[in-house]
């Protein structure tokens, strides 16, 4: 569980400095575009993302920290076991053994159920075997887990775009591609 920022004073101070200096604070994460906005609007110079001014942490925390904000950039590296299963799955997909590939990925998901990357891999298997609707759904599942991880977000949109293209939904495919492109750091 990520912790709340427990340094309200420091953050307030930083905010103040930022305001005075009129500069952009480095955000803990900076999604180039929020999902509904395909093209990122270059923010005005004094942009302070709302997450930059977190309220002071409550004095009384009766229990473990509630789900946290702001999310830091998530550690993306899969553990070696899951990585091995992904590699095996990719080999199986190449050989056309989609069911076995999916089985490998399901095992990996039991180890890391919150990994956007695994859902994208799973979606690629579905896409390869022609189950385009499931490919899209898995892309969307990945998106819901990829907050703060533009690379995975981009890959998820790419997958969704492909699934649309395979179903001849050209315009939706194009839109998804634009989102995927916009998320890529360059």
């Amino acid at each position, binding site marked *: *569980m*990520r912790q*709340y920022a427990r340094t309200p004073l420091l953050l*307030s101070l930083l*905010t*103040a400095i930022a*305001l005075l200096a009129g500069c952009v604070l480095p955000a803990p994460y900076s*999604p180039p575009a*929020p*999902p*509904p*906005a395909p093209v990122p*609007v270059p*923010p005005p110079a*004094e*942009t*302070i993302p*709302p997450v*930059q*001014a*977190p*309220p*002071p942490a*409550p*004095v*009384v925390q*009766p*229990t*473990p920290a*509630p*789900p*946290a*904000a*702001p*999310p830091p950039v*998530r550690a993306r590296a899969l*553990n*070696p*076991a899951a*990585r091995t299963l992904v590699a095996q799955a990719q080999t199986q997909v190449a050989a056309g053994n989609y*069911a*076995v590939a999916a*089985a490998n990925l*399901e*095992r990996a*998901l*039991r*180890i890391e*159920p*919150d990994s956007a990357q695994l859902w994208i891999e*799973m979606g690629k298997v579905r896409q390869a075997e022609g189950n385009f609707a*499931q490919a899209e*759904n*898995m892309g*969307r*599942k990945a998106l*819901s*887990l*990829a*907050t703060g991880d533009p690379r995975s977000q981009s890959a998820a949109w790419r997958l969704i775009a492909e699934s649309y293209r395979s179903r001849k939904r050209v315009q939706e495919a194009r839109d998804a591609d634009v989102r995927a492109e916009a998320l890529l750091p360059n």
Partner: protein
Amino acid sequence: MLLLRIGLASVAILAAFFAIYVAYLDRVVTQQFEGRRWTLPAQVFAQPIDLYVGQSISGAVFEQELKRLGYQQAAQADRPGTYRRRGNRFDFMSRRVQFWDETRDPQLIAVTLEAGTVSALEDGAGAEVPIFRLDPLLIGSIFPIHGEDRVVLTPEEIPPMLPAALKIVEDRKFDSHFGIDPIAILRAMFANLRAGRIVQGGSTLTQQLVKSYFLDSRQTLGRKVEEALMAVILDARFEKTDLMTAYINEIHLGQDGQRAIHGFGLASQYYFGKPLSELQLHEVALLVAVARGPSYYNPRRSATRALERRNLVLQLLAEYEVITPKEAEVAIKRPLGLAGDGRIAAGYYPAFLDFVRRTLRRDYREEDLTEGGLKIFTTLDPLVQAGAESALTAELERLDKARKKQRKESLEGVVVVTAPQSGDVSAMVGGRRVGFDGFNRALDAKRSIGSLVKPVIYLAAVETGRYNAASIVDDSPIEVKLANGQKWRPQNITQETFGPVPVVRALSQSMNLATVHLGMDVGLPLVAQEFTKMGLEKEPARLPALLLGALDVSPLEVAQIYNGLANGGFRTPLRAVRAVVDAQGKPLQAFPLEIAQLADPAAVYQVNRMLVEVMNRGTGRAARARLPPGLVVAGKTGTSSDYRDSWFAGFSGSHLAVVWVGYDDNSPTGLTGSSGALAVWSQLMGSMNTSSLDLFLPETLEEATIEYKSGLRANSECAADVLNVAVPHGATIEQKPGCEGNVLENLGQRIGGFLEGMIRP
């Protein structure tokens, strides 16, 4: 001459009749034997355990798993199915295993466990192994034809001690006689005549087998002759080892209520709670003793008699040099060692198997099922199942004892556990007597779910865009006009009213009046549809009472609905069967993971955050004491009217568990969701390996700090009890008077909101 002819003719006619009779018997008994023998039951396997570095598992649990899988401790792990333990390090040689997606040859593996986690995993050559699957545990068999489950053993699964002991005790000439043993019969007759009553039986194992097939215990002479003839026929037609295997799988060894315990495999589970292959000498001897007369030598009812008989069996084994006198001496000193109090200990999962059977019936053609030898790979996690069973039985016992008025009837309960991301059903307990194969409450008990409906209503409200966690709802008396003209005046469970409260508090404290206000504002059609959206098959009636949980569904259906929440707004059908392969290992059918988005993930996120508050400060906070510190969970209590049903549904990052507690006759229990079901739930969640709920703030939401009581924007310097909630960017939240102090914060928020408005079209 004539006489002779008549004589010969009658003999011929008699012989002909006799031949016809024998042919008839032959057909009957052979059919019976082959029908049972050649119906290879479908074998049902649990989810295999994956070993990898970093996985949590203790040395004790790991060793127990190896033993349950039938691995034998040895000086060297040099044969498949053996292991060696040295402190924290286990070396084991895996068997050849057929998984549904691969077949793997035996492999030498070394596992090192430190502080309850796998710290190293290597192969025989010392090379790192990233991940290794243990053999899947056999959890039962399904006879597709008879629809019954039994633990049926193949000859390889029978420990050699058992047939040896059976021969010595029941039928010493088994290997040489022709189905009956005339000398034994004469000896028995003589002994019985001398004693004036029946003291000895002369039946061979084959005769006993025949008797068991036709379940006719009439001791008439005609019956005996017929039995003897059938035994001779069987003996002539089949191999001795086949007959022995059939005997071991067939013979009656006890009675569990309505359920007859047939076969040593099931009896081993029934009496000792473990598979036959793991029984020790004194335990095998007890089963052999019971075989002589399961009711007379019932070890649970006539312990002394059973113990004497068991020791006699042990002495005979020593006498005939199957075991050494020393071994007999040690075994004789052991107690009976029965598992549990009449219930079957871990290892027999009737509720789950029932669910598997129903899945198969739904998805298979009868001819697929009857071809036999199927292997069914399920999603059952035996560790979670064991945790669910013990949490339920222990807590129900405690709750029963704590009752003010002692009742004759005891509380019943259900636990269903799923892995939210895949919809895999990890555990299912269908009643308090976990091994009792009867009414499967998990699937068939449709009970009123009370406040478990609330998260669905709040989700519907959030999805309208008109409500968020900080929105104010009115917890005040309300009157709803019903279709029949009557007026409905709901009340809070405590009869109090709280006035204007934030949505998050209304849900945390499960306020009825606030919920009715909210639900009526959202509209009953939208609320009712939300249930089907979340996975309920039939849309509930659009009645106001729905808002307070007038909805009768099974624990499994509750699990399906809450799985949608736990899975972040994605639906995945709950499944018990992962794959089915035929006798040759060819996959017949796979049930791949399928998901569909059913609700806006941001809306589900907001509701889940509120459900975390239920555990932190609301009706679920009692669970805290039993959960590991720092474990983040979300959940909701449910209590039906007059305290008839006590529910809890909640989830961590890796498990969703739904618990129901109540009486079968639907009488009041006096328990709320929090005093009953929550106790079982927290006991279970606290005992198993589960990960924190890790929620990712969607980019369309932001954090806001509000006062819990009023829902006004506040901070810890100006209000006593504040909390963070997730709300859509730019949500308007009124400021608590006296909380304007933090200018910078307000400024930041205002600018943030302003920019948000600019960026968002």
